């Protein structure tokens, strides 16, 4: 039977029960709308939370750790190779966390095409002097431009100017929490004690707020040069090399490679932040579950309507069969009806879902913790629309499957006799 005939018969049957059809389609529309809205919002939220951490985290971090020597003197004796060694006489050397060969590593990384950018860093423990008490904290010495390019640092600088950090010597950008505790304003000079006990005065040129309170309460930033002075070390002293890759998924493999080549510790982002992926996964799972549950409910609606329609159209089905339409033809007609409901309902669902997302996207969302966010986050991932569309068709197909089969099995003789 030709498709156009199937469609034309399906359309006529649909029109004959227009109101019920509408109700069924609205059910699908509603569930797809919610599906898209929910997923876009949840996923936007995911991106936001991930971004909070992941955007600020290098894909690979190279650093040195204070580690005991792996090979103890006794290991060098073959006689004891099968014995348990509890003589660990060689202790870690003094806390030298510097990356040796920084210059060479930097040049090698620059040449690596998989690397998007490099930002060196010095981690430095300090005490902020507030009146009589000292607050422990740390200062990160950064290359202002590289840090800004890789981690959008300026977005988190809520007051003052980032570039002053580079241009003013002995300057500092204080964490918002630190600044509040110190009652420091921009332009003030604060005093910190380095781990070696020296007192250093630094000029406050800005505040930054990452959104993570624990971080903002201890962290501050200074330029690399300032930090090196603070520590009293040479110009080549660097403790961390932060690397962003073109393809984040390669991080574990490349980290392993660097570990071997450069003989440093290399931490990839996947290992460092595995718990965030779990969180994202759970949120996504919830959204899909809710969306699909809604769709299944809508599917039952369609199932009901089709069953009713078939009960209603028994005579018509019998006549179609008596005049030469096969069970398969009848089946196709009803599947077409179901799919049209799914298609039309799903289409409007996608449109409304998009509208709903766009509306949520306009709702103001201001929070202390997230200085860069002004409205509720939405992710307009086209995949959601594709999945929503496909699911609306699949659900309606299954909702139509049994009623259609029932229709195709109707025995015209019984119906015609029954009159």
């Amino acid at each position, binding site marked *: 039977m030709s498709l156009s005939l199937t469609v034309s018969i399906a359309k*006529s049957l649909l029109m*004959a029960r227009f109101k019920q059809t509408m109700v069924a389609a609205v059910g699908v529309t509603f569930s797809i709308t919610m599906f898209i809205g929910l997923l876009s919002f949840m996923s936007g939220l995911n991106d936001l939370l991930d971004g909070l951490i992941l955007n600020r985290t290098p894909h690979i971090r190279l650093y040195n750790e204070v580690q005991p020597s792996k090979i103890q003197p006794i290991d060098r004796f073959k006689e004891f190779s099968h014995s348990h060694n509890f003589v660990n006489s060689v202790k870690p050397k003094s806390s030298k966390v510097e990356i040796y060969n920084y210059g060479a590593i930097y040049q090698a990384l620059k040449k690596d095409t998989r690397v998007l950018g490099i930002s060196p860093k010095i981690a430095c423990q300090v005490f902020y002097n507030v009146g009589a008490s000292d607050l422990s904290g740390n200062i990160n010495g950064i290359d202002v431009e590289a840090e800004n390019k890789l981690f959008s640092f300026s977005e988190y600088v809520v007051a003052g100017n980032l570039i002053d950090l580079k241009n003013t010597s002995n300057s500092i950008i204080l964490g918002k929490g630190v600044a509040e505790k110190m009652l420091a304003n921009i332009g003030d000079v604060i005093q910190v004690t380095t781990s070696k006990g020296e007192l250093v005065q630094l000029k406050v040129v800005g505040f930054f707020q990452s959104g993570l309170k624990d971080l903002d309460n201890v962290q501050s930033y200074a330029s690399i040069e300032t930090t090196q002075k603070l520590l009293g070390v040479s110009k080549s002293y660097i403790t961390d090399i932060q690397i962003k890759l073109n393809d984040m998924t390669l991080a574990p493999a490349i980290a392993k490679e660097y570990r071997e080549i450069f003989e440093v510790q290399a931490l990839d982002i996947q290992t460092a932040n595995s718990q965030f992926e779990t969180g994202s996964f759970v949120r996504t799972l919830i959204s899909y579950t809710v969306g699909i549950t809604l769709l299944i409910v809508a599917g039952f609606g369609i199932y009901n309507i089709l069953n009713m329609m078939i009960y209603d159209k028994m005579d*018509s089905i019998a*006549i*179609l069969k*008596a*005049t*030469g339409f*096969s069970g398969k033809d009848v089946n196709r007609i009803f599947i077409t009806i179901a799919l049209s409901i799914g298609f039309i309902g799903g289409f409007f669902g996608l449109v409304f879902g998009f509208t709903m997302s766009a509306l949520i996207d306009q709702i103001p969302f201001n929070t202390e913790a997230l200085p860069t966010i002004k409205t509720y986050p939405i992710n307009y991932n086209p995949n959601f629309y594709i999945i929503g569309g496909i699911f609306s068709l699949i659900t309606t197909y299954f909702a139509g499957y049994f009623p259609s089969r029932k229709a195709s099995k109707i025995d*015209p003789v019984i119906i015609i006799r029954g009159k």
Partner: protein
Amino acid sequence: MKNKILEAKKIVKYFHDPMTIKVLNDIEFSINQGEFISIIGRSGCGKSTLLYILSTMDTDYEGELIIDGVSMSGKKEGDLAKVRNEKIGFVFQFHYLLNEFNVLKNVMLPGLKLGKFSAKEVEHRAYEKLRMLGIENEALKLPNQLSGGQKQRVAIARSLINDPLIIMGDEPTGNLDKKNSEIVFDIFQQLAIEFNQSLLIVTHDNEFAAKTNRIIEMEDGKIIRM
């Protein structure tokens, strides 16, 4: 010798509910091309049951049915539907039109299903049939806007759309008044004479039967006269 278009061979039919009864018993007869036959018999003797078997809608029987030289035994549902579509026109007592479609579309549907002609040609043919039955002016009305007699004529037009081998009717005039019955009979007669159309019509109307070429009389599931 005339061309046999339909042959029933030892057809036996049982109903099992509420208990097993033999409704048709060794039905054996054949129909030649162009014959106008009526089936008569008391109520409950199995006329409708036989007609449903002959029209391939009922497949639960013993014996053999041969249509146009081909045995219907063991054919699949889809193939039987094809046979019905192509070779058999059916007219019921209660006209049975599809209320969702207008008269024209009702007549066209089996033709569209057959797919031998384009939609345009099928429409043209449908108009021809409607004109022949004098109802071309009703073509765009819905079935429920027609009188009983008109509806039955639409049903006849529909049965004719694919130029079937045979038209079967189960009391097609049973629901009509005398005048309309006569009109329908005249149409059948005209089809038989002018177009050499074969017809097999179940009727309670002895007057109607008397005017046909051949009468098959049934009693208790058996043919007693033919």
